[in-house]
Structure formats: structure tokens, C-alpha cells
């Protein structure tokens, strides 16, 4: 057969792909393609939808300012419908068929792990812009969310000083919760405190009556609760309903990441101590400008949350690195990222740690107040010390693992 089946196959696949995709405007390579995989429907879309909005906002800002390297940035976006199998599917589609230049996305750690190896094999730079459990060591990925050590190091001493030395930990039963609980334990002990109990809850547990009674039996001064998702929000509600709020202090490393504090009433939420990279109440010129352009694009700025800002900052960091590298070559991009690059985002200054590809950023200690997060103290430029203790991509660039950090 003179017709080469392989080329024919590729050709038809590409045309079929282009015909299906409404958001690919042109098939030729005169744009920079940014691939996005986010859960914008299904159970996790409370996180994913604002992230998608942040992505569109960042890209339109970049394009309005003339694009990158003289080209417009084009978004190729897929909705993974909160289904891990679709991450594998679209990861392949983005890299093999759409041949995007970079991928930003992934929300849960499982979704990141589902596509990380595909990105690595196809040499597609991958940005995972979400707060997570730490420990990923891979030259091809950049992560700019806060890690447990960054949060717990700030939150635990403050909360203990305010309440007392006996601490009870209630954590979500998955990777993030388990690892965060260990870090909290470490910092509690370092600060001369004592952990009187640790309990883990599957993500669909929504009845905390027995737990609240159990906590009272242990009589701690402080409860730290890295609980995740809609079902776990019930804990904060039931805690307040039982009248525990004024008896035992409450802190969390996750409450508010998806704007959960806006769901709780002021009486339920007030006084919960948290530590994040971003708060809508940050009164800085960068944040005010960001909120204004968000409002201009989407009407009002109430949807902004920690993850959306992380995503926005991740895309801006990538854009700065591309401009610095002067080409779309992967190694040039990585070198530019590793050059000590830093940007000024809505949440403050953020710079890339060349050793781990994680971020050095400001952590704000906050208290929930009237459905907002009042900033109490800013700890500038916190290093991702957890990942740094196991990962050195400068010394060992071929590393490709997610470390479980021994504490």
C-alpha cells in the first residue's frame, strides 16, 4: 500500500479533533497553546469553576498586553467532570492530539498523579497550582500552592499561644490530611504542647455528633481541623450548634480554601484561625487591582478563593518565564523558572524555589470574621521546607517521585 497508514491516521485524527473542538480557533501554530484540565462540573467544581475563571482572566490579560513572544495565547480547556479517568483521557488528548505547549490544571492530588507521568513522557511543562500535601519532586512540574509545613509552621504556634497546650487533631482521611496531621503534631510538640488525640474522617462523613462528644472527653484547649469538602463543612456547623465554639479554640488549614467561610454564618465562623497565601481582605494595591479586574470580567469578585488566586499566579509566573526564556522550548522555560524568578501577585510576592520547583511565598495568619478572613499577621517569604528536606532537583534532575516526608 503506497498510502502510509500512520500519516493518514494522524491527519484524520487531527481534523476530527479540530471539528469537534469549538475552542480551537486555528489549527496552525501561530498561537501558544495553553492546555487546561479542571473539574468545572461534578463534585469538585466549587474549586474548579473559580479556577477556570482565573485562568480565562489571566490569559485575557496576557493577550491584551500583546501576548507572549508576539503570539496570542490560546486556551484548550477540558472539563474533567470530577472523574479521575477523564484526567488520564484528556491528559493524553492535550499532549498527543492538541500538542499544547503547557498544561495548567489538576485539583486533587489523585488528578495530578493521573497526568503527571504523561506530561513528563511528552515533555510538556506542567503547572499544578493548588495547595497540597507536598513532596512531589519532578523537574517537569511546577507547584505554587502552600504546603503543610508552610501553613502549620505559622498556624500552630499562634493558635497554641492563644488557647493552650493540649491539642486535638481532626483530619480528612486521605493523603493530604494524613500528612498535614503529622506536621501539625510535629509543630505542636516543638512548641511544648501535647497532642491528646488524632481522628481521621473519610471525605463523605457528615455526622460529627459522636466525634464532638469524644473531643469533649479528651478536653483539649485547641482543635485543629484539616477537614476537606462539603460534607466536612458539617463539622464546623455542628461544632457551633453544640455550643463548643466558646469553650475550645478551633483552627484549620483547609477551611476557606473553597470559600467555605462564606457559607457558614458569622456566628458559626467567627474566631476560626487559619493560615493561607491569600485572603480577599488583603488590602494591597495588587489585590485591589486584581479584584477590580475580576469584577470587570465577571460582575462581582465574591467567587475568588485561595485556589483561584494560586491558579492565576501560576499562569502569570509561567508567562513571566516564557518572556524571560524568549522561546517555547521546554528546557529554556525550566531554566528561566529556575533562575530565581519572582512575580508580584494578588497574594503578595511569589518566587520559584529552584531546588524543589515549589514556591516561596507569604503566609498570612488570619481569623474568620463576619464571613471574611481578617489578616492578623503576615509571615513573609516562607520556604517550602517539607519538600526541600527530600527533594533537590539541582543535584538530582532526573528525580521523579512523590516523597512521603519522614518527620
Amino acid at each position, binding site marked *: 500500500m503506497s498510502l502510509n497508514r500512520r500519516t493518514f491516521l494522524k491527519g484524520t485524527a487531527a481534523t476530527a479533533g479540530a471539528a469537534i473542538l469549538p475552542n480551537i480557533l486555528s489549527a496552525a501554530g501561530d498561537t501558544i497553546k495553553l492546555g487546561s484540565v479542571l473539574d468545572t462540573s461534578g463534585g469538585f467544581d466549587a474549586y474548579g469553576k473559580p479556577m477556570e475563571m482565573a485562568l480565562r482572566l489571566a490569559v485575557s490579560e496576557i493577550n491584551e498586553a500583546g501576548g507572549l513572544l508576539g503570539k496570542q495565547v490560546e486556551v484548550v480547556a*477540558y472539563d474533567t467532570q470530577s472523574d479521575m479517568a477523564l484526567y488520564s483521557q484528556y491528559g493524553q488528548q492535550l499532549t498527543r492530539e492538541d500538542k499544547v505547549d503547557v498544561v495548567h490544571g489538576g485539583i486533587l492530588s489523585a488528578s495530578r*498523579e493521573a497526568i503527571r507521568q504523561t506530561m513528563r513522557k511528552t515533555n510538556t511543562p506542567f503547572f499544578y497550582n493548588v495547595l497540597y500535601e507536598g513532596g512531589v519532586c519532578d523537574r517537569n512540574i511546577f507547584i505554587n500552592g502552600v504546603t503543610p509545613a508552610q501553613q502549620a509552621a505559622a498556624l500552630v504556634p499562634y493558635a497554641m499561644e492563644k488557647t493552650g497546650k493540649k491539642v486535638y487533631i481532626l483530619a480528612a482521611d486521605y493523603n493530604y490530611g494524613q500528612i498535614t496531621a503529622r506536621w501539625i503534631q510535629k509543630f505542636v510538640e516543638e512548641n511544648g504542647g501535647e497532642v491528646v488525640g488524632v481522628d481521621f474522617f*473519610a471525605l463523605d462523613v457528615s455526622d460529627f455528633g459522636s466525634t464532638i462528644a469524644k473531643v469533649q472527653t479528651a478536653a483539649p484547649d485547641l482543635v485543629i481541623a484539616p477537614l476537606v469538602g462539603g460534607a466536612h463543612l458539617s463539622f464546623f456547623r455542628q461544632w457551633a450548634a453544640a455550643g463548643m465554639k466558646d469553650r475550645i479554640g478551633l483552627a484549620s488549614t483547609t477551611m476557606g480554601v473553597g470559600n467555605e467561610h462564606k457559607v457558614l454564618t458569622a456566628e458559626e465562623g467567627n474566631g476560626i484561625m487559619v493560615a493561607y497565601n491569600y485572603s480577599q481582605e488583603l488590602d494591597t494595591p495588587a489585590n485591589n487591582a486584581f479584584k477590580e479586574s475580576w469584577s470587570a470580567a465577571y460582575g462581582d469578585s465574591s467567587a475568588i478563593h485561595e485556589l483561584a488566586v494560586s491558579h492565576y499566579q501560576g499562569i502569570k509566573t509561567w508567562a513571566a518565564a516564557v518572556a524571560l526564556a524568549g522561546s517555547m522550548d521546554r528546557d529554556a522555560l525550566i531554566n528561566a523558572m529556575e533562575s530565581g524568578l519572582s512575580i508580584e501577585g494578588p497574594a503578595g510576592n511569589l518566587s520559584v524555589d529552584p531546588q524543589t520547583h515549589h514556591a516561596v511565598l507569604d503566609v498570612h495568619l488570619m481569623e474568620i470574621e463576619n464571613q471574611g478572613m481578617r489578616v492578623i499577621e503576615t509571615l513573609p517569604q516562607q520556604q517550602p521546607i517539607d519538600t526541600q528536606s527530600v527533594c533537590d532537583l539541582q543535584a538530582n534532575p532526573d528525580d521523579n517521585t512523590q516523597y512521603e516526608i519522614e518527620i
Partner: protein
Amino acid sequence: MQGSMSKDVMTTLVVSAALIWALPLMVSTYTLTILIIYGMLGLSLGLIWGFGGIICFGQAAYFGLGAYTYAIAAINFGESTIPMLLAVIVPAIFAALLGLMMFYGRLTDVYLGVITLVVMLILFKFINSTAGPQYVIGNARLGGYNGIPGFQTLNVPGDPSAYIWGDAYFYVCAVMLALVFILVSALLRSSFGRIAVGIRENETRMSLMGYDIRARKTILFSIGAAIAGLAGALFANWSEIVTPSLFSLRQSAEIIIWCIVGGFSNRVGPIFGAAGLAYIKILLGQQSMVDNTLIMGIILVVFVLFLPKGLVPAVAELWNISFGRRKRGASRSGRRVRNRGKANG
């Protein structure tokens, strides 16, 4: 079912060869692979529900069990041949044990549904709560909610460094599905298969004729689980990560929806239902106009109301009405579906 077995095998081979050649021209092999895997999963439920009358709401349990068995074994053995075999055997044994418990406990129709559903939920909750470092099998961490990534994927038997992936993996999966299909056809043609259909139609009658219904149901259930397990192992190789969502209610629901849309009481219906709907789902993820859950819901309701027998039998009937002589078989099978509905209610 007219014609002889050898004719059946020939038809299967010709049709599948044609599809294996033609489909990659239209859809990427990576997408086709998952469609084939889902097709096999659909077939596994079609076999036990459509032909055996066993109402199973938890078919995803065996799919997930196969995938997890493969992943755990692959990490421990560092090659893929034994894990592939285990991924078929473990779900089959698990289902056999469960079947013994259910069928010897005289459980029928909707109660079977509840037990299979509950067993799946137990597996789901268990796997979901294994995030701690204490849950290890050999070298494999179970990983809880985040699942198990980074295991050895399919390799040429005997040579762990020769991976089968990409286009080659598509051909492997396609051939596997064709083989499973032929085996299922052979099974249904055998006396075992005919008796299974007899049991579905009227359990009392068959038991009065002296057949051991409980043993036969258990075996059929176990075969269905083995096929689902194989599909699970293939899925694990395709996605390169296994997560507890494989065991979820949503996954089980999807399998049933596929079978309903394709049509239960025939062999090709579940396969096409699965492949078609999974493809629609993939296409839907590329638009953001309408909520995707909404569309799947409407599809299901419309099918139950207007095409309760499923697409494939409906098309076949239409074909017969418009082009062929009305065959007795077609109208008979139509009545059979109706009776089944009544018998269950």
C-alpha cells in the same frame, strides 16, 4: 440465535477485524482503548443480568477489584503477566464466595441488588480509608482516596522492559474484547448458557427439572466478575493510576446505563451502549454550555420510557420490519423482555 457456532466465530472475527482497522481512522487509538475497555465491562454485566437474570448493582466492585489487584501485584512482581492473571482470578473468587452466600441464602431480585450494592460500598469505604502508612500489601501502599499511581504497565510476557503501550496496546485490548466476546458466545450456546437463560425465565421450573440453580448462578456470576476484573486490569494499564472512584456508585450506575441504552438481552448491545455513551461523555467534557450530568440523566429517562429494550434490539427490529421478513425470533425476544420486567416487579 440462528446459525452455527463456527459461523458465529467467523462473523465476530470479520466484524471485529473490520472495526479494528476502520475505527482508528476516525478516533484516536487512546480514546478507542478506553471505549473497548468499557465495552468489555458492559458485556460483563450484560452477561449476568441480561442472560442470567442476576440483578447486580455493584458490578463496579469487580472492575475496581481487578484494577487494584493488577496494580498491587504489578508493584510487587515488577512485571505484568502474573498480575494480569491474578486480576481475573481474584475478582472471580471474590464473586464466587459472594455468590455462594447470596444464592445459597435464597436471595432473589431486588435483594440481590441491595447486597451487591452494599458489598461494593464496603469495598469503596475500605479502600477509601487506607491513606495511612499502615496499609501496605508487599511493597504497595494502598494510598486511600488518592489511589495507587506508578505501577509497572503491560509488558511482553517474560521481558519486563518491553512495554506494550500506545497503538499496540489498543490492538491488544481489541483482540482481548474479541476473544471475550467469542468465549461469551460459546458459553451461551453451550448447555450451560441455555440453562442459564432458562433459569432467568423461570427459576422454579428449572429447579423442578433437576438443575442446581444455586451453583449455576454462582458460576455465571463469577464468570461475569472475571470479565469485569479483566476490564479493570486493562483500565489500570490505560490510566496508569487506580483510585477508589472505580468502586463508586457512579461507576456502577454508568455500567447499568450503558447496558440499558445498548439493550440487555443481547451480546453486542452492552458493548455498543458502553462505547457510545463513554464517547458522548468524552465529547461533552469539551463543551461548557450545558451541565453534563443533566444530559446523561435525560438520556437515561428517555431510553427507559421510549426504548426500554435498548438501542441495538430496537434497531434490529426496525431493520427487520423495513428490510426483512419478520422473524419469529425478534418478536419472541421482545415478549421475553416484557415478561422479565413483570417477573421482577
